[in-house]
């Protein structure tokens, strides 16, 4: 035997086993995932779709397991993106073992998913999670009836206390060693068995189906899937369908199947629950308060306010610290680098540009920490419930309001926070409308212009800007859903999960997983963009005079479009720089007008009329999202298409608004 074969043998024995984990939303799937993998995990996107996949790994008895977290779903049909991803993944057979997570206090609803997995024929483990909570409520569960009837391992766990972890690992290990496991078979009533047999008999005559589903030709998965969800995404040939319809009353059979399944599941579950326990009292009282007409709304407003103000008050000192650190870094570099263009590239381009965006890191991480708290504790769906009616007028659901409020802090986390919106159409419209939420980076521009032109009506103008910004987000999402974003409209059906106290560990993992996207994906694009802008302002005269740089020339190109608004090339060039990040508008005006920021007020008063200043304020409110936001849009929509759309769309809208404001403002000012 050669060395190589020997090595091969060793590798087969210790081959990494892939386990996937699936369950309804809110069953504690993520906590279990965290429990098994600890920090050995990363987030990726499924190819071609925006659904996230979390991958982690753990070792047990020297064997490495790869754990894939599938999206939280109720069924495995192909209707929603999450369900389709999970279904396709599971039938593609890459996962050896599937862990189905069920909630001890809500066992029944997970059984539908479990049945579908047994049909697919993978090695399945049922994990009944949160047994500690169930025990507190007085519920006692005996896993053996389910285990014996379905012939699968059933394990009681608590992701919170770690109970059952060893047992689960042992069971997974045992299953991974077993080869050629006999496929589990569910015994259906005769009528359904007849249908399954007929289906399987005929299928072999249609090579198209048998090649597409070659792994499932002998299993009952295909006929059962057909009964449950119809033929739409199975792509069965028309003559095959006709043959089925001639021999069976499909609609009637479907009802019989569903009835059988409900009865079977409730029988199975009730035989496993030895004692019911009471779950409602405290939860009901809390829900009564949280959904109350007056109290509920007060708590909602308070929660939004608290998240918003805590985020910014806690983050500000850290941001300032980072800001000084970047300034210090810039200064140190200028001392060492003596080549003027390189110094300018590093200090004015890379460090100023990338640093200007990186100072948002504290905001983003702190925000996700609080948002994670609201989500994991179970408050977020209740908040969505409260305001759903209002949001619906604009084609949104209650969940969207939270994202809009976040947008006033920074558009980047706001856009990332739309991940939990199930309706794809709503989500896309919201992502593209969120840049109109006036983020905090635009505030310095407003303050500069308002103090220069409208100091007597400062508060009024500020209020007007913010109200217009909210109105614009809402109207835009309504408009986009009507004309641009097209996909199936899913009704708003959500579950109110039980209240839970989030653990610090889960919150940290949540915060890190979401926050690091900002670092990874936005980082590269911002770097390229800031270097590009630096090139435009540095050349062709090597930084001696910004007024004759390429950037200034571009500003002049736009003059025909902006002259009637009273904006000359200097204003335009500042706006172009502002595309990188809105704060840059102010500092670039200081550079272009060649004055300190203190005397910028006078310079602007000479350059603009009140009406053109007002138009400029509203233009800044609406125009092109910053590079970090564009990068986020690209990441969240999985492609450049919508980022480019957003670039053009916001500019057109901003230009129209600026013209409108200039015209109306001209009458009053």
């Amino acid at each position, binding site marked *: 035997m050669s060395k190589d074969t020997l090595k091969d043998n060793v590798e087969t024995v210790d081959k990494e086993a892939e386990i996937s984990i699936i369950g*309804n939303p809110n069953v504690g799937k993520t906590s279990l995932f965290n429990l098994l993998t600890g920090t050995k995990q990363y987030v990726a996107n499924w190819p071609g779709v925006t659904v996230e996949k979390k991958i982690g790994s753990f070792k047990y008895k020297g064997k490495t397991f790869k754990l894939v977290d599938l999206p939280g779903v*109720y*069924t495995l*049909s192909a*209707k*929603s993106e999450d369900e389709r991803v999970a279904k396709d993944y599971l039938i593609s057979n890459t996962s050896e073992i599937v862990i189905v997570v069920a909630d001890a*206090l*809500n066992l*029944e*609803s997970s059984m*539908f*998913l479990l049945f579908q997995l047994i049909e697919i024929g993978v090695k399945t483990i049922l994990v009944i999670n949160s047994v500690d909570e169930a025990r507190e409520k007085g519920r006692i569960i005996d896993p053996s009836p389910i285990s014996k009837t379905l012939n699968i391992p059933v394990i009681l766990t608590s992701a919170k206390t770690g109970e059952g972890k060893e047992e689960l690992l042992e069971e997974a290990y045992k299953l991974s060693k077993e080869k050629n496991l006999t496929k589990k078979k569910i015994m259906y009533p005769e009528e359904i068995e007849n249908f399954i047999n007929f289906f399987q008999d005929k299928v072999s005559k249609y090579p198209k189906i048998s090649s597409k589903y070659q792994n499932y030709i002998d299993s009952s998965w295909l006929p059962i899937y057909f009964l*449950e*969800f*119809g033929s*739409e995404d199975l792509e069965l040939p028309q003559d095959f369908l006709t043959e089925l319809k001639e021999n069976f009353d499909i609609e009637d059979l479907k009802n019989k199947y*569903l*009835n059988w399944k*409900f009865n079977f599941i409730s029988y199975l579950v009730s035989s496993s629950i030895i004692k019911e326990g009471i*779950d*409602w009292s405290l939860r*009901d009282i809390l*829900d*009564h308060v949280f*959904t*109350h*007409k*007056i109290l*509920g*709304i007060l708590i909602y407003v308070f929660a939004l306010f608290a998240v918003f103000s805590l985020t910014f008050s806690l983050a500000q000192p850290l941001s300032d610290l980072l800001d000084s650190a970047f300034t210090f870094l810039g200064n140190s570099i200028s001392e060492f680098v003596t080549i003027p263009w390189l110094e300018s590239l590093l200090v004015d381009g890379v460090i100023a540009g990338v640093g200007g965006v990186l100072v948002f890191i504290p905001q983003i991480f702190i925000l996700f920490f609080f948002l994670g708290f609201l989500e994991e504790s179970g408050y977020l*769906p209740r908040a*969505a*419930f*409260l*305001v*759903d*009616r*209002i949001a*619906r007028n604009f084609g949104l659901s209650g969940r969207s309001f939270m994202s809009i409020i976040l947008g006033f802090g920074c558009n980047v986390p706001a856009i990332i926070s739309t991940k939990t919106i199930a309706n794809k159409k709503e989500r896309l419209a919201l992502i593209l409308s969120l840049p109109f939420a006036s983020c905090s980076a635009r505030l310095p521009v407003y303050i500069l212009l308002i103090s220069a032109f409208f100091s007597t009506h400062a508060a009024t103008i500020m209020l007007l800007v913010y109200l217009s910004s909210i109105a614009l987000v809402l109207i835009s999402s309504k408009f986009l859903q009507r004309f641009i974003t097209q996909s*199936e409209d*899913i*009704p*708003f*059906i*959500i*579950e*109110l999960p039980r209240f839970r106290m989030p653990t610090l560990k889960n919150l940290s993992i949540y915060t890190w997983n979401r926050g690091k996207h900002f670092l990874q994906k936005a980082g590269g694009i911002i770097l390229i963009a800031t270097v590009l802008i630096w090139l435009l302002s540095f050349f062709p005269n090597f930084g001696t005079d910004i007024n004759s740089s390429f950037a200034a020339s571009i500003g002049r190109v736009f003059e025909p479009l902006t002259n009637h608004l009273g904006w000359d090339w200097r204003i335009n060039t500042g706006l172009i720089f502002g595309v990188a990040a809105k704060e840059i508008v102010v500092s670039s005006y200081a550079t272009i007008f060649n004055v300190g920021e203190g005397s910028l007020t006078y310079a602007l008063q000479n350059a603009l009329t009140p009406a053109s200043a007002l138009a400029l304020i509203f233009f800044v409110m609406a125009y092109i999202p910053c590079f970090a936001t564009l990068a986020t849009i690209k990441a969240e929509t999985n492609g450049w298409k919508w980022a480019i759309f957003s670039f053009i769309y916001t500019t057109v809208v901003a230009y129209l608004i600026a013209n409108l404001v200039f015209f109306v403002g001209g009458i009053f000012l």
Partner: protein
Amino acid sequence: MLIPLHNLFIGQKGKIVSLNIEGESTKNRLIAMGITPGKFIELAHVSPFGDPLVFKIGEKKVVLRRSEASRIIVDVPYKVFNLLESEIGKYEIIDIKGGRNFVEEMRSMGLYKGVNINLVNKLGNRIIIEVDGKKYELGRGRASKIFCKKVE
């Protein structure tokens, strides 16, 4: 008696009879969430703006909009009338919804669960009822908080 789900009053239970939902995916989602024929479902909370609604089903609380709830048919032992919307006739009070003060005040008038009342007249915003031979006048707000069933 069969009524659409959104016509339950808070705290009332009904047995699900059918789901007349058109979209296959929505229907399957509801079924997978446990909203299946034969099960009991209870209206638990109503949003401050009247829509959506929270229903309790088994160990679950599910949020549905009125539009979806109206297509789910439930069986209740009897139709519940809101006194405000009731016609003239005899009724039995099955629940009074409101704060403690309101419930106490109604009790002092002899209005509580299980009492038979006679709705004698409706005059615009005033609803005249007779309890134990005494006549009372209720405004719209108060009447809307009293739920009753018809006495044949």
